[in-house]
């Protein structure tokens, strides 16, 4: 069974969002997502300064098998991208909720976080996928 931390919010397309103490939001893909994709070999993160819309394509993760879009769980401006993934995309497989984060957003509407799935609701999405 894949890990689903209870302190994060989720999209049903398998992205997670974490509200940091400074009000920014860190985004990545779930353990279930990295397991389904298999070994990642390339990650394209958004450019810092880019404006994202909630649910819009924001990044691309590519496994040996295929390329998959990553959608932003929240609207706002990209304030950081995980540049370490350029040389080490496997960090997403090894530590999807930690060193494998994708980008950070300064939200334009923090209330959007409340519209995301909590861990029990996301767990149901993952179970339904099996």
């Amino acid at each position, binding site marked *: 069974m894949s890990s689903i931390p209870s302190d994060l919010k989720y999209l049903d397309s398998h992205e997670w969002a974490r509200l940091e103490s400074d009000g920014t939001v860190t985004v990545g893909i779930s353990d279930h997502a990295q397991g389904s994709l*298999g*070994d990642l*070999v*390339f990650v*394209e993160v958004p450019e810092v300064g880019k404006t994202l819309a909630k649910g819009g394509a924001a990044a*691309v993760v*590519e*496994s*040996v*098998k*295929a*390329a998959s879009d990553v959608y932003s769980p929240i609207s706002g401006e990209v304030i950081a991208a995980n540049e370490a993934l*350029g040389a080490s995309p496997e960090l997403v497989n090894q530590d999807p909720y930690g060193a494998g984060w994708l980008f950070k957003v300064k939200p334009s509407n923090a209330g959007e976080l409340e519209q995301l799935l909590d861990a029990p609701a996301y767990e149901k999405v993952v179970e339904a996928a099996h």
Partner: protein
Amino acid sequence: MGLKTPLYETHVAAGARLVDFGGWDMPVNYGSQIEEHHAVRRDAGMFDVSHMLSVDVTGARARDYLRHLLANDVAKLKESGKALYSCMLNERGGVLDDLIVYFINDEWFRVVVNAGTRDKDIAWLKSHAGAFGVDIKPRTDLAMIAVQGPNARAKAGTLIGEHAAAALALKHFSGRELGPYFIARTGYTGEDGWEIMLPVDAAAKFWADLKAAGVAQCGLGARDTLRLEAGMNLYGNDMDENVSPLESGLTWTVAFDPPERDFVGRAALETLRKNGIPRKLVGLVLEDRGVLRGHQKVVAPGIGEGELTSGTFSPTLERSIGFARVPAATGEQVQVDIRGKLLAARVVKYPFVRNGKALI
């Protein structure tokens, strides 16, 4: 629900991730696809290829029949057990399938065809059989396991008892019936190894014994990255019924000599050669970061456009490689459209990797 090989339950029990491949439920990996790839390049790995079909062609005119049906010439096969890679063409010169044919004796050849085309192939083979009085027998009673890698033959050889010496003596691209097995020194990875046909009900135990002997189980995901590194075409991706072998990097498999041999598709290929072959299949290495994939657009500046037929990340080279069908005049530098960006790629000779070594 798709078709299942005799090893389906084995794959499920091993925790394989299963996907549809040509109508079959097949393992794509058992964990890390990249580790499975490296196991074959560095040691030994095995693949369930029972979805492919062996077909026995028997009869006094078996050789004449195959000389008519195949673009390569089975007259080249003189020693029992020798194998030949060939395309089977339609009258338009399009590729119905690519296959391996083994010469067993003058009245018995064995043909191994792809999973996704097997029904079509059998119908085609049978439709031409009458004129030559040959019998076409699909060997659905046989499973097939490929063991591949520098240590594959040594490890698998420990499991076949009295037959080991004869199997280890097989030359490259030759096969032989040995007791319950038909063992061939062939494969689809660019490494040494065997493809072993055996009775369906013996497959699960043989697989388990191979695993115990230290042969890593590998899925179709690793099989695809291995064959692409090895510069081998995949039917349905790199060629199909609507494209000739001359535009698929397979000219070397078409035997135009002797000129009087009248094989199916010959007239169409001769016309194509006379009028000029407009496209060619090339190997590509992506110079920028990213991953080549099938169907991406290729731009040859000042010449024209083409398309990726296969692409992947090469675990051995740690960069992206692929095949593309491009205008014949394409030079060394091209660009590939990846999500709207034109990235630089270089045309290279393939194979990209052979016997564990990078060639580019």
